């Protein structure tokens, strides 16, 4: 039977649902939440004691990091490179300067950097220039994937994880997805099966109810809009919403597709919700694809 729990985590609400066959399997919900909490502890920019903050404070000195942190940094690095830096996790400086992210006593820092600023060597990482990394653009999706990896390895055949709208479904379940545009009513957008969906929004003003601010690769706020991407894994869907948001409008769809995602909506939302125009292919995805 389907068992679900929800906790406030990663700055939002995280729901985990599994098709559990017995009570022992139900216990795996706690294991999956603990895994997400661990990623939150390691990669939170807000927490001064996180590994990410320690790296940002390390003034260029190499740190040995947890394999989970290393893996996320490697994915972020690869996505920065592949997306010609339309995805950029070195823009935290601009967000600290705008007061969106906390200043943990960084001293002098650059508002934005580039992919060469992140140097990963085995389990050690250092920053080549005084840039500040933030993984908020990818870590929620990464946490979703990690939780699902643990659940599948433990024998759970189907379920989903929803981290504040970064949703991935696995197994035979088809999970209906609603899309919310701005403050409007959510509309049905389709079913998710062995795939992930993520949405990012840029707003003209900071709103305490929503997190963060979307900035472009130079660290400047981007025009208001909303982008939804479907991909095999949640980290990729998550990161590709940032690519869609920051790439030139006429290139975004193609670039997202080249990087393994499908751009579902741009500014005005999903066409598919009310019509036949977006008959997206009905295909199952490989379950572990990243």
């Amino acid at each position, binding site marked *: 039977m389907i068992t679900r729990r929800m906790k406030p985590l990663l700055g939002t609400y995280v729901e985990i649902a599994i098709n559990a066959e017995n009570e022992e399997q139900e216990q795996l919900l706690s294991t999956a939440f603990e895994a997400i909490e661990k990623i939150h502890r390691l990669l939170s920019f807000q927490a001064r004691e996180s590994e990410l903050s320690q790296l940002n404070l390390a003034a260029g000195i190499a740190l040995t990091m947890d394999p989970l942190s290393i893996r996320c940094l490697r994915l972020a690095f690869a996505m920065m490179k592949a997306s010609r830096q339309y995805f950029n996790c070195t823009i935290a400086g601009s967000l600290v300067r705008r007061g969106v992210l906390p200043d943990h006593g960084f001293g002098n820092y650059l508002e934005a950097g580039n992919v060469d600023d992140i140097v990963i060597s085995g389990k050690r990482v250092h920053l080549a220039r005084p840039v500040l990394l933030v993984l908020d653009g990818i870590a929620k999706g990464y946490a979703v994937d990690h939780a699902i990896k643990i659940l599948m390895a433990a024998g759970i055949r189907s379920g989903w994880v929803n981290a504040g709208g970064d949703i991935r479904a696995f197994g035979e379940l088809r999970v209906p*997805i609603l899309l919310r545009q701005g403050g409007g009513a959510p509309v049905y957008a389709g079913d998710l099966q062995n795939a992930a969906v993520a949405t990012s929004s840029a707003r003209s003003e900071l709103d305490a109810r929503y997190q963060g601010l979307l900035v472009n690769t130079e660290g400047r706020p981007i025009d208001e809009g909303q982008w939804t991407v479907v991909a095999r894994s949640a980290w990729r869907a998550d990161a590709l919403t940032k690519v869609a948001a920051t790439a030139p409008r006429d290139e975004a769809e193609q670039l997202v597709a080249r990087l393994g995602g499908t751009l579902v909506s741009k500014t005005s939302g999903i066409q598919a919700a009310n019509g036949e125009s977006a008959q*997206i292919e009905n295909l199952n995805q490989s379950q572990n694809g990243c």
Partner: protein
Amino acid sequence: MRHTPALIMMPVAAFVCQVQAADYLSTAEAQAVLFPQASTFSRQEVVLTKEQLKAIKKASGVRQRKTMPPIWRAEREGEFLGWFYVDDVIGKHEFITYAAAISPEGEVRGIEIMSYRETHGDEVRNQQWRDQFVGKKVDAPFKLNEDIINISGATLSCRNITDGVKRLLVLQEMVLKE
């Protein structure tokens, strides 16, 4: 052939509905999750005075609505483990009932969402979603249209929970300190 990740579209019938709600845990279930080692939960009667409500607001920055907050004392064979609270927070779209476990020393031991409701006007009916459970070993499929809340959109912040817990910590310090 390269498989493209897909949202699977299907015809849906829409109808109007005000609230979507998901119930995760009952009070007893939340107690068992947050204090697995406890053997008894005894209800602690607390009646807050106007002055105390004001003082909680002042110290936590958040308004305490209930004058009689539901609080339980968790014990294991007479050993005091901590306080169990059931509390509500209201956001722009969501209304949440959650449980918090706080140690006697004022340390948050855990938070569980008990019930999550989102209000909006649009809803879907999805026969295929229901059909996938027919004849399968699924004891409690979702009450469709009532408790599926997979909404993708601008990420909702869980700050109102953080604020709610801050308020409970102040309340505990003020009226439950032993």
